[in-house]
């Protein structure tokens, strides 16, 4: 009896995604990434106690996402805020893709001040200076686009938030490989965003139960 109940729960749990019975396709492939550029050390405006790494802070990573031809009304994302924290005078993660409407927290994990702000048109915000124990305001990104996040104090800190009109996105690994599962079948635009100047896209059609392999070579 109890056993039967447990089974039912498991089945129910498994069945839950199966409710949207169509979301069964997947896509994978390789985005050809550009070589990382060495960041030139610059004079800092402020002296900090935090060791600033000399190594490049941006091994290029692509954000791969699918835009549906028929825009989904699925705003189920951003139920809970995601985090872009500051750690060792770096944003973590440095590249953060989110769906429109997602709230982001910017907790300071360092022992020094940070001042996170953005002048990007997609989302202007300025959290002011804050320390580890202070909790800055949560920012909701309500427009799609690219938001460059700075720290006023540490000029090498640089974060990018990619605000997307789709729940289907994934960061590639450092070698450019990506894989997105549980996709509903249909026609999509497949995009890989590497920088504002390097966005690649392909039109694809996903069929139920299949896995598509699409590479996005450098243009």
């Amino acid at each position: 009896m109890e056993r039967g109940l447990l089974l039912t729960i498991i089945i129910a749990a498994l069945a839950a995604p199966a409710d949207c019975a169509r979301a069964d396709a997947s896509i994978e492939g390789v985005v050809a990434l550009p070589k990382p550029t060495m960041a030139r050390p610059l004079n800092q405006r402020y002296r900090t106690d935090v060791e600033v790494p000399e190594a490049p802070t941006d091994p290029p990573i692509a954000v791969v996402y699918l835009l549906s031809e028929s825009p989904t009304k699925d705003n189920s994302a951003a139920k809970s805020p995601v985090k872009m924290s500051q750690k060792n005078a770096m944003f973590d993660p440095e590249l953060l893709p989110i769906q429109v409407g997602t709230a982001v927290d910017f907790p300071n994990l360092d022992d020094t001040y940070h001042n996170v702000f953005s002048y990007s048109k997609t989302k202007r915000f300025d959290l002011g200076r804050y320390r580890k124990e202070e909790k800055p305001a949560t920012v909701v990104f309500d427009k799609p686009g690219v938001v460059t996040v700075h720290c006023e104090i540490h000029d090498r800190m640089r974060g990018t938030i990619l605000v997307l009109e789709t729940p289907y996105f994934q960061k590639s690994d450092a070698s450019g490989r990506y894989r997105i599962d549980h996709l509903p079948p249909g026609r999509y635009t497949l995009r890989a965003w590497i920088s504002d100047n390097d966005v690649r896209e392909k039109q694809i059609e996903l069929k139920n139960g299949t896995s598509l392999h699409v590479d996005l070579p450098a243009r």
Partner: protein
Amino acid sequence: MMLVVAAVTGITLYLAEKNLRATHQEALDAQFQNQVRSFLAVQKARSGAIAEKCRELSHSVRLRAALEEKDFDDLYRNAITELQGVFAASDEGDLDPDVVRASFFRFFDATGAIIPPGKHPAGLPDQEKLDDALAPMAKGLRDLNEQNLAFVALGRGNLPRLLREVVLTKIRDWKGRNLGALVLGFPISHLEKDEGDLDTSINIGIWLDRQLYIDGLNAPDRHQIVERVGSAMAQGAGHVEVDLQGGPHLLFYKALDPDTRLQTAYQVCLYPLAASIREEQALRWKIIAFGLLVMFCGFAASSFLARGLSKPVDRIVAGSVENLSRRKIAEHDLREVNRELEKALSDLKATQQQVIQQERLSAIGQMASGIAHDFNNTLTPILGFAEVMLKNPAMLDDRQETLRCLEMLRTSAQDASNVVSRLREFYRPAETDEEFPIVDLAKIVQQAVSLTEPKWRYQAQATGHTIRVTTAFNATPMIAGEESALREVLTNLLFNAVDAMPEGGSISLETSIEENKAVLRVSDTGTGMSESVRQRCLEPFFSTKGERGTGLGLSMVHGIVERHRGQLEIQSTIGKGTTFIIRIPVAESAPAAAVSLEATLASKSKLKVLIVDDEPRVREVLSIYLRCDGHAVATAASGREALEKFRLQQFDLVILDRAMPEMNGEQTARFIKQLNQNIPVIMLTGFGALIEVTGAQPQAVDVVLSKPVTLDALRRTIDKLLHAA
């Protein structure tokens, strides 16, 4: 006089003016350099803070972000916030003059375009004017340094207040990419004249892009300066003289920022020369006045002098008594002076005499040591042969060899006596035409070789080396010479040769006749002489033998050769040996047959001879001499003994020594003559030469003979005396 004064005044005037002008110019130059320095110092102090602020600002993350996002509103808003305290929104207001306020700022974007400030008060609202001023800067943005200082002119015009100093700072993003630049301009207010400075006639300006920004100049002056400065810069001169309406000026200029990649600005300084010209003129008048004064003084002095000079003439004409007494005084003075002069002269003569005496004494000293040296040389064979014979009695069995040795002994002894006789040279004036007997050079060479044998053969053998002596007589020249002196020459040369060959070797002697001269070559295979030694070796007391040498040998040789009217030549090579070449004129006539008296004097008669000498060895030698000739000999050791013997016996001849104790030779002779008027008396003396020279021959003595006396000399004397008698 007038001419001189005029000329001197003229030259002084010229030099003084030139000097003054140069000094003035130097002073102005120094002042200008100081001014530029202080200008730059002020400029640096003023711009330093601004430049630092700009540099800091260029790292502002917000400004970078705004530039990156092209959010120009935020860009200027942030900049105004950041530039608080540096930038005054308007030029007027209660500005602290010590704090420099920027009068405008602008951003360039990455392409060099000027980003308009929009509604933000970034100063200088006349955007068009600013665009004109900044356009060249923006265009060359790529080539500029990270931070640049420059001057720009805002709009047309030529007043310094139009100028702004500008700090341009590049802005780069976190990767070093060019994002744009910040330009901040501020007035060069300290260039503008203060109200209080109005009386200062010095004018300072800036030369920028073929334009002169300076206050208070009218158009023609400005035009002239622009032209002059332009050409001066082309020529690289540091200053020019310009003739403005306000008078002549000296213009200095200097680059304020020679390293800039933008338009170079020059500071220009105008110094009025009016003051210095006034000074010059004043000086000129002073000098002319001084010259006139000098001329006047000159006239006065010359007329005074002329009058003064004519007075004595008047007096002479008058011929006053005063004049006469003065002359007497003068004469007296003159006599005094004369006497003093005479005294001085006699003093001088005495001193000279003293000097001569000293010279002579030192010459005697030299000669004495020379004689000692030579004497030792002649003693060497005497001692040598004597020792050889004494140590090898067996040698005496060889009659021939013994005789040869004895012969050598005699020759050496004769030479020794000749050496001593050379002391005469000091008492007898040097004979210019010394007559020498004719001698055979080859024979002398042979004798010298034999004489020195003890040294070159036995002494060398004792040290284990062999010295060979060879002779070559290519001719047997007859020369007029003193045999013993020539032997001395050869002896010296041979000794030197032996000393020069410590490892053994060979000596060759060669005689020949060349160009009517007897030539003697003495060569050794010894160490040879360096050139410097060769040049000095004839000097007296120059020696290379250390303590063993007197340094007189070769100087003697040289002297003797000269005395024989010969020449001495020395050829020497280090390590190979030395050759001495002596050239002496060949005698014209054959020798007057030096017939030996030995044959003729085979003592016709047997004489009874009394020998008086306190030296037993002299008595012995003389006794032997005379007995050999068959004479009967009696001896006495003193004058007293001699007189006793003379009274008791009959004698045909008395030979006595001069210097004897108790009764000397002269006294003895006198007594003997008193006893027998006709008896011949021969006096022997070691001072023979002295007596001969002084001519103080004792009256009681018939003949004076010098010691050492040879058998020959004795025989000849006896013969002469008895024949005469």
